[in-house]
């Protein structure tokens, strides 16, 4: 095994890990505030990638504007869904939210499979980020470096906004006792809608970032979400920092197993999940409720 292969897989692991982190971070925000397990998160990841592709294909709008516009479109779509559908199940058992979002996921994925098939659409790297640098121990493609940096900035920026700012204090307080926060004059229903928008926009951005690396495929959301839910179980549901760290760490672990024992790479995360469930069922960063 060569060092190049090792570092190459590490980088790819880090990239996948940052996608896991962004998706599970979005899930954590939504779960904290809405008490809904958003099974449609994978669809929003796929929609982010498809919106970027459609912007280029049909309107001629390139990568950089799409990086803003596609997640914005995903957020708006998500917020309409929250206002019209999700709010109807808030007072019911968690299971209803899970089933509803699972159904929404199936509908969205099914429509895109019907329209675009499952072979995948290519999406080119932005011109500015083609090529790469030789770091001596490995060749670092510029676009991959950008994805890792952008994801880390986004994840830790989101963490900072939630843990250290005034808006974040509103969110944390509303997670604990929404009625009391409303009784202080804060519009919590609006806060919930915007947070849902932000949570799914994170998946949308991940989708745009992923589009040039993988193809734009209607099944991409379904493929990633299984792993993301395992990440969420390992990290502990609802933990902000936990979802970021677990996402990145498991991506790297998956990458490493591709080098050292490729046969296990598809199941290593699930093996970790089983171990964690046996030892600490609430997850590594989870707290007993």
């Amino acid at each position: 095994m060569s060092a190049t292969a090792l570092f190459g897989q590490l980088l790819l692991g880090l990239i996948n890990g940052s996608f896991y982190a962004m998706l599970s971070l979005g899930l954590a925000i939504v779960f904290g505030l809405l008490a809904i397990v958003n099974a449609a998160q994978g669809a929003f990841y796929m929609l982010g990638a498809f919106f970027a592709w459609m912007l280029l294909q049909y309107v001629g709008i390139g990568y950089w504007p799409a990086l803003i516009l596609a997640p914005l479109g995903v957020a708006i779509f998500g917020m309409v869904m929250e206002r019209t559908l999700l709010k109807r199940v808030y007072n019911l058992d968690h299971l209803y939210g899970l089933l509803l979002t699972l159904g929404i996921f199936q509908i969205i994925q099914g429509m895109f499979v019907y329209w675009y098939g499952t072979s995948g659409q290519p999406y080119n790297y932005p011109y500015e980020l083609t090529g790469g640098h030789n770091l001596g121990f490995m060749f670092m493609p510029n676009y991959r470096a950008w994805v890792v940096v952008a994801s880390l900035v986004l994840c830790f920026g989101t963490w900072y906004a939630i843990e250290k700012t005034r808006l974040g204090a509103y969110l944390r307080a509303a997670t604990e006792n929404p009625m009391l926060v409303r009784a202080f004059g804060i519009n919590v229903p609006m806060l919930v809608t915007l947070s849902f928008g932000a949570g799914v926009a994170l998946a949308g951005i991940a989708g745009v970032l992923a589009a040039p690396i993988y193809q734009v495929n209607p099944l991409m959301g379904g493929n990633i979400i299984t792993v993301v839910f395992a990440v969420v179980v390992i990290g502990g549901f609802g933990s902000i920092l936990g979802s970021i760290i677990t996402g990145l760490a498991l991506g790297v672990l998956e990458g490493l197993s591709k080098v050292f024992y490729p046969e296990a790479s598809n199941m290593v995360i699930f093996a970790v999940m089983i171990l964690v469930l046996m030892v600490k069922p609430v997850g590594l960063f989870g707290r007993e409720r």
Partner: protein
Amino acid sequence: MPEPILEVARLNGWYGESHVLHGVDLKIGQGEVVTIVGRNGVGKTTTLRAIMGILRRREGSVKLFGAETIRMVPEKIAKLGVGYVPEERGIFASLTVTENLFLPPILAPGGMSVDELYTLFPNLKDRGRSQGSKLSGGEQQMLAIARVLRTGARFLILDEPTEGLAPVIVQQIGRVLETIKSKGLTVLLVEQNFRFAAGVADRHYVMESGKIIDVINRSEITEKMERLEAYLGV
């Protein structure tokens, strides 16, 4: 009576299917401190929750500062200038003391400054970075009151501020209420500790089975003490 701040008429309220408030009537004028007294479970806390709009199902009329609020959501009611200190204090465990203090947005000018609040509640001063959950019961109660005094609310609703607290803390909260009153704020207080309530309030509404059954003014307390004790079962 001074300018009315709160006028509650024929207020009915439900928790799910169970009918808890059966036509509550009460009025509070500008600058008054008024209590609702009564035994456990007669609907005192529910009345406060109904006034704040937290109780989902309510009917009748609740006018605050002259505006009908029976169809308003809690955030709109709060914005009229109401500060709410709930039962169990409602300190957010995941927020620091400072974050708790600054959580309620400013509703109107004229609220107390942070310096004034720290003078009034010296115990809170050095606890800014502690998590809300790390405070003692008394400190939590101080914080819950301090946090609404910052907002400029003109009408305060306090639900059992002395519950479970040591006598010296109760005295301290009594002094805080005097300060609040001297600032011309209006207060509606639910209180089990009648001695405490009698010391601060202008008027007492006696509640039983979801209704106001008697009103006792401050001047009448001594002559009506026996009746009151019978109501409260002491």
